[in-house]
Every structure is written in structure tokens, then in C-alpha cells.
């Protein structure tokens, strides 16, 4: 078991390295240096700026310096925001995104599993059919359509919640719902399918024959197996959630990593872009490792070493 964990962790490192390297060189291959958008300046000053940021050196040296900085956990200075370092910018933004993401994920899991179980136990009834259809709608409506629609109805017409901003607990409601919606739908579908399959197994009949109440049968037996596809999906789900924050943060003006990333992309702020890609990729790898460990613990039928 420990060997499996170590093997997974180790196999992620070369990939992380690959991501860093590819991003680094991609960013430098693009036409236009980060200073290209600045005001026209005398060549001496431009040369000085380039020396300051290390942009005048050959790429291999820049790469080497960047790697050395990474070992010290230093992601470098931001090229566009003059006084801030990438570390500081990310440090300010990521708790915001983490909060939003965690809330959305929790919402998606709870609501999704609950609705999926509901649909599975009432199979082929009106409840089931309508939930299945709603799930399809949830997966199809884009979050950048749902979000503004929610704002239009709830904030501008009903005046119940603020349309944008961050800082108080009521600011988090609409963004979390918007972010979570497609995953509630997807998880509900997965749970329903998993539960339907689990409920057909022999041990369910045994449990009922032993006199266990339906509720107990559901939770103690069926759910433990039915929920496996959902946990296995959590890894990619978080990746998609992170992607979703990019749009949701723009719509609701939330100062998180997604917003920061889009800004950096528009400004061609190399180090900030790289920093965010790095931080997010590392976080995702760690999370996926965690999910894999949980899967192995929960389902003794999985053997370590099997993909």
C-alpha cells in the first residue's frame, strides 16, 4: 500500500516537471516579449529592464534560474504588477478560490449523491424521470449562462443576494451554486447508475431478509459500493471545477486565482502565468493522489498497481 502511494507520487513528479518545462518554453516562444506592451521607451531603459528581469539571457539560463528559484519556492517577480511578486499575488488569491471551490465541491457531492440516491430508489417513477432530465439540463447549461441568469433573477429582480463581490458569507451563495450546478447533475447521474447496480447485488437481498430497515440497507451497504464511481470522478471533477472558477470569478468579480490567471493571460505576464499553472497543477496532483488512496481503502477489490 505504501509502495503504491510512493509509486504514484514519484510518477507525478516527472509530469509536473514536464508541465513546468512546456509552459516555460511555450510562454517564451510566443511572439512579443512581456515588455512589448509598455510605453515606448529609450533603448537604454528597455535594456536595463530586460537585464533586471533576466530577459536578455539565453533561454537555457533563464530556465535554469527559474528552476533554482523553484527549489526555494520562489516563483519570481510579476512582470506586469511592478511591486508584487508572484508568490504574494498567488498567496492573496488562492484562499479565495480554495474557499469557493471547496464549498462548490461539497455542495456538488452532497446534493448530487442525495439526488442520485433518490432517483435510484424511485426508479422509473415521475421523480426519477424528472431528476434524470434535470440532470441533463444541468450538464448542458453553461455556467456562464446560469450565473448571469441567477444574478438577473435573484439579485436584480428579487433583490435577495448581492450580484457580485466578495467578503461576506452572502457573497458566496450564487457563485457556489453556479460553479457546482453541472457537477451536481453529473454526480447525481453517476450515483444513480452506481446505486442501481449496487442494489441488484445479492447481499442487498440478504440484508433485507435479515430485517435491516430500508434506510440502513441503503446507507450501510448499497451506498458504500454505489459511491465508488463518484469518488473516482472526484479527481477530474476538481480539475473541471478549477476551470469553472475562471469564468465564475470573472462574472462575480471575485479576486481569486481564476480571475488572476485570465488577467495574466491578457497581460502576457509570464511568471504569473507559469506560477499559477504550477500551483494549480501541483494541487491537482496532490488531490488526485489523495483520491486514489481513498479509493484503494474503500474498495478492497482494487489491487495496487492496476491503473
Amino acid at each position, binding site marked *: 500500500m505504501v509502495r503504491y502511494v510512493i509509486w504514484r507520487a514519484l510518477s507525478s513528479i516527472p509530469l509536473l516537471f514536464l508541465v513546468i518545462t512546456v509552459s516555460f518554453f511555450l510562454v517564451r516562444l510566443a511572439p512579443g516579449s512581456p515588455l512589448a506592451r509598455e510605453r515606448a521607451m529609450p533603448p537604454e531603459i528597455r535594456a536595463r529592464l530586460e537585464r533586471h528581469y533576466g530577459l536578455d539571457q539565453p533561454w537555457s539560463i533563464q530556465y535554469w534560474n527559474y528552476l533554482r528559484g523553484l527549489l526555494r519556492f520562489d516563483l519570481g517577480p510579476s512582470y506586469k504588477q511592478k511591486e508584487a511578486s508572484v508568490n504574494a499575488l498567488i498567496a492573496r488569491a488562492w484562499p479565495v478560490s480554495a474557499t469557493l471551490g471547496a464549498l462548490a465541491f461539497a455542495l456538488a457531492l452532497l446534493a448530487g449523491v442525495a439526488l442520485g440516491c433518490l432517483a435510484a430508489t424511485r426508479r422509473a417513477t415521475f421523480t426519477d424521470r424528472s431528476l434524470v432530465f434535470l440532470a*441533463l439540463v444541468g450538464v448542458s447549461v453553461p455556467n456562464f449562462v446560469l450565473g448571469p441568469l441567477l444574478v438577473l433573477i435573484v439579485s436584480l429582480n428579487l433583490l435577495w443576494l448581492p450580484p457580485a463581490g466578495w467578503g461576506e458569507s452572502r457573497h458566496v451563495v450564487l457563485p457556489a451554486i453556479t460553479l457546482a450546478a453541472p457537477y451536481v447533475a453529473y454526480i447525481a447521474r453517476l450515483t444513480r447508475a452506481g446505486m442501481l447496480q449496487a442494489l441488484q447485488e445479492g447481499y442487498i437481498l440478504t440484508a433485507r431478509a435479515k430485517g435491516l430497515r430500508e434506510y440502513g440497507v441503503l446507507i450501510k451497504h448499497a451506498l458504500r459500493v454505489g459511491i465508488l464511481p463518484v469518488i473516482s470522478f472526484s479527481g477530474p471533477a476538481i480539475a473541471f471545477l478549477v476551470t469553472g472558477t475562471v469564468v465564475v470569478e470573472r462574472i462575480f468579480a471575485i479576486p481569486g486565482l481564476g480571475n488572476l490567471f485570465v488577467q495574466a493571460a491578457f497581460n502576457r505576464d509570464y511568471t504569473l502565468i507559469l506560477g499559477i499553472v504550477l500551483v494549480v497543477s501541483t494541487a491537482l496532483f496532490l488531490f488526485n493522489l489523495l483520491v486514489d488512496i481513498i479509493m484503494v481503502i474503500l474498495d478492497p477489490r482494487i489491487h495496487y498497481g492496476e491503473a
Partner: protein
Amino acid sequence: MVIPALIVLGIAGASLFGPLFLPFTYWETHPELGASPPSFANGHYLGTDLLGRDLLVRMLYGGRISLMVGLLSTTVSLLIGVPYGAIAGYLGGRIDEVMMRIVDILYSLPYMFIVILLVALFAQPGTVDALVDVLDLTPHSPLVGWLRGPGLRLILLFMALGAVSWLTLARIVRGQVLVLKNMGFIDAARALGQTRTMIIVRHLIPNTLGVIIVYTTLTIPSVILQEAFLSFLGLGIRPPQASWGTLVNEGVQAMAVAPWLLIFPGGMLAVTLLSLNFLGDGLRDALDVRI
């Protein structure tokens, strides 16, 4: 399943031929009208946007772009995913393990970040100049003119989107190949001395067409969604080009005074995606495909 198919065909038909029947173009501005609500009287059936451009025509043009990007990106992902999955499935063993491990890892990367990165970095005039140099194009030809306009972004978009959508398809094809490769006709082909490539190309892949069709029908809406997503952010198609994403973006900005600018494009996008997803789900249930 007939209803979603009809809806999709209807939208496709309207997008392709509709603008021919309407008196407005998507780029004509009438500032004096400025964001008028839908009405039958003045011919702007869905209203106009802030610059007085007719919304219906823009939505139909958006349909063209979305469908085109959807089809082209899906083609790219087919070209990458199907051979990848077939090779991994047929060769099996270590190679299959490694190839599928790569797919697993890629599946959990924030690939949209990389797509944004790609588009943001390379959708610049400098890239067109570089291409003109490297490919030895005529600097003032219509092709280069188109590239400098919407062309480069479109190409980048559908390549990038195709490159991130092939994963599920590869997995599905591999699964199907694993089932097929133990069947009699493959043994017969091997006994006849056919090379591995020929077996893959002429026997395995044609027999996976069923699965491929199902999952292609599910990939298209995913790609359309991603294009709209990027355009919404301003990193995909740009105004005055009318992609559904840019229309929703404009709608969001004018939401308080002109809600129809948000509701109609958003609704059309949602209905198209819903129909395509419904169709794909139905096909998948009908063919009883297992991953």
C-alpha cells in the same frame, strides 16, 4: 430521440440558411436604435443589441461559428483519439499501460488553463508574421488577410480544443478494441499474414464505428461549450464576430437594461447543447455501450 435530432437539424439549418432570408447583417450597426426590445413591428424579431445590431442574425451567425468549431475540433480529436485508443488496445501489455496512464494523467490536468495559455500567447499578429516566414506565404494574399483577421484565432481554437477532447474517445475505442481483438476474424486475419497496422486499420477501427459515433455525438457539445467559454472570456472569437459566447458576454454586460440580450443567446446555446447531449445519451443507451 427524434425530437432532439430535429432540434439540432433545425438549428443547424437555420444557422446556415437563415441569414440569407433576413434583411439585416450581423455587423451593421444602427446606434440610433440602441438595444431595442424584440418586436414584430420593426422587423427585429429578437431585438437589437447596444449598437443596434439585429440579435437574431447575430445568433444565427453564432450558430455557424459554433457548429463549425464543433465539427472541426471533433474531427481533430477523432484523428488523434481513435488511432491512439486502437493502438493501445491492440498492442496491450506494457505499452497499453503506459499509454493509458498518460491518458489518466492528462485527464486530471487543468487543460483549459493550457488552452487559455495557448490562445492568449499565440493569437497575435506576430504569429502570422512568423507563419508567413516559415511557410513562405505571400504576405498580402487573401489567406494571410484572413489569418490576420479571425482566421488565426479560429485555427488555434479548433486545434487546441481538439487536442484536449480526444481522451474519452481514446478510452472508449481502446475498450472496444480489447473486446474485438479476441474475436475469430482477427485470428483469421493474423493467420492470413496481415500486418498489425493493416489489422488495426482495416478490421478493428471499422468495427468500432458504432462507439465512435456515439461518443462523437457527445464530444461535439463539449467542444461547443468550450469554445463559447473561451469566447465569453474574450480569449476565443472576438467581437464584432458573433459567437454565442461573445453574445452571452454582451448580454451579461447589458443585463440590467436589456435582458433579452442574455436570455436569447444563452437559451439557444443551452437548447443546442441539451439536444446534442440528449441525442448522444439516447444513442449510447440504444447501442448499450459499456466503457
